[in-house]
């Protein structure tokens, strides 16, 4: 019945580059009645990795996840898990579990029954089933809620049940479809840390889907950026932020200004641009240009400056409002200012 035996939980270093490949997608394509959702996706995910598929809505990231889960069948391409193609395998025969965006908890079953559902389907012995359910509920800090119905839980608690229900099966690969999307900001940030912690604890490979670039940067070992059904770039959070390979990635991951100089386009991250009063001298090796201050927005931790250069280019700069910092530039709208950056941080796109 189960083609693949569950892999031994690896607590290996998560970022071990060149680690063993767990999941390999080659030439995967999916269209719905002519509308192409996934154009052609090639992807390799290593065992033990926290891998994120990031992209705007309609970019194909969720469809790719659903293809891996088995909720959809690809029109072309292979989906290899542990070297076995399972593009045509039913979801119940895949060593993969999913955490759903809206939890999809069964409303007529208690928390414990929800978590035990997968084990019962696999005919795990009652005693072992009980132990594993208790362990999973402890891990998501819901040990005291075993007898509750989903309707009696808060959104955050339901999300934890969804997570426990999936990891209790010890899948080779855990798929998470925007699992924190419905939670408010504070809870979402707490859950990000907790998810990462749980992933390190259980050593299961996580494949995470989100449209939130901050979430992707803070949690992932590697990120694949999706756009129009294709992957634009795959890399570590630092790589995709500092060295984007396409203008789309430069814009979607973080914000940036695009400057054209000597016939080439460069990307400038706002935190790498300084705004100074005219006449002040830029540090050695830095590039300085004059412009007009178009807007200044106080954001608490930062102040954001929008400067229009002589050739019409718009530059956005963000400076921390730290003690003694140059953040509080006392200039009004329309006044001339100097923008300064290190040419090495201007990344060609």
């Amino acid at each position, binding site marked *: 019945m189960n083609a693949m035996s569950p892999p031994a939980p690896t607590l290996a270093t998560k970022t071990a580059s060149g680690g063993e490949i767990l999941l390999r997608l080659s030439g995967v394509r999916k269209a719905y009645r002519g509308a192409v959702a996934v154009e052609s996706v090639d992807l390799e995910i290593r065992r033990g990795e926290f891998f994120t598929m990031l992209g705007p809505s309609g970019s194909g990231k969720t469809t790719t996840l659903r293809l891996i889960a088995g909720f959809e069948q690809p029109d072309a391409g292979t989906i290899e898990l542990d070297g076995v193609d399972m593009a045509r395998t039913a979801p119940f025969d895949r060593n993969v*579990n999913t955490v759903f965006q809206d939890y999809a908890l069964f409303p007529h079953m208690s928390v414990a029954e929800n978590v035990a559902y*997968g084990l019962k389907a696999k005919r795990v012995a009652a005693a072992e089933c009980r132990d594993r359910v208790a362990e999973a509920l402890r891990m998501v800090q819901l040990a005291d809620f075993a007898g509750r119905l989903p309707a009696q839980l808060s959104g955050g608690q339901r999300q934890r049940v969804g997570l426990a229900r999936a990891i209790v099966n010890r899948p080779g690969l855990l798929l998470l479809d925007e699992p924190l999307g419905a939670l408010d900001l504070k809870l979402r940030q707490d859950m990000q840390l907790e998810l990462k912690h749980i992933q390190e604890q259980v050593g299961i490979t996580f494949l995470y889907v989100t449209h939130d670039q901050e979430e992707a940067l803070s949690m992932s070992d590697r990120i694949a950026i999706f756009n129009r059904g294709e992957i634009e770039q795959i890399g570590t959070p630092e790589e995709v932020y500092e060295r984007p390979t396409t203008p789309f990635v430069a814009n979607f991951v973080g914000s940036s200004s695009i400057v054209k100089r000597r016939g080439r386009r460069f990307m400038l991250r706002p935190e790498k641009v300084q705004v100074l009063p005219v006449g002040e001298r830029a540090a050695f090796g830095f590039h300085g240009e004059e412009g007009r201050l178009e807007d200044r927005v106080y954001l608490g931790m930062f102040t954001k400056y929008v400067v229009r250069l002589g050739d019409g280019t718009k530059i956005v700069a963000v400076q921390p409002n730290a003690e003694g910092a140059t953040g509080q530039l006392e200039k009004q709208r329309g006044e001339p200012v100097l923008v300064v950056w290190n040419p090495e941080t201007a990344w060609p796109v």
Partner: protein
Amino acid sequence: MSSAHETLRRGGVPRRFSGLLWRNPRLGLGSLLAPPLAWFILIYLAALVVLFVAAFWSVDPFTGELDRTWTLDNFRAILTSDTYRAIALRTVAMAAAVTVTDAVLAFPFAYYMARVAGPKLRVALFALVLLPLWSSYLARVYAWRLILSHDGVLNWALKLVGLPQVDIGYSRWAMWIVFTYIWLPFMIMPLYAALERIPGNFFEASGDLGARGWRTTAKIVFPLALPGLIAGSIFTFSLTLGDYITPVLVGGPGSDFIGNVVYANVGIANNVPFAAAYATLPLLVMAIYLLVARRLGAFDMM
């Protein structure tokens, strides 16, 4: 501006009345509910009370006049007579059989409508289910008489394909078939509503957790559709329980229902107290049925 406000504040009679209702929400609710409540108490509850009271009266066998003295004779007759017991049992058994058959037939049909069929096919199936309700009950029962009678459509068709003839016209089999047919839409509709409400990703989640189709059906679909099933069964069960036309038209000899006895006692025998006493029986059965249904959560759906 203030003059416009003045005009509004003084207003006409309708405006002042609306303001009164706004300030006293209970008054609004009361005036809304009073007419239906009055109707309910007068026509419905009062009639029921008269029925219960009359059940303890009797009729003078010689003069045929009502004797309004308190007596349990009617109930004693019902409980001790084999005939009346058999009729009650037959009625309840038929109601149960029809309910089970309708549930079995309706489940796959409602499932297909709710979860498989596309929007266009769904509308067409809706029409097919509801269309018969537009024609008269009597016309449909008479149609079944023509189908099931000895030289009817059924035997003609059987003969055509070389199968042996059946003789089920005017029998309990005929009643079972006709009741099942007539009340089927009342089972399909609530079942459809229940099945349609199950979120699609429950099926995905169940499969994702390793459950095949049968387990998903048994553990997810069936429990979530149960309230709809029970709501439908209340219709099929009570409608069969109270019927007295189908037994006359397609039932053979000895297929009287409770309703037929009540009808005969009201009309021919002119023994209204006995009819009232016998009529409390289906009321009692339905009351028990509804209590059990409430326990199973059937009314969470309505």
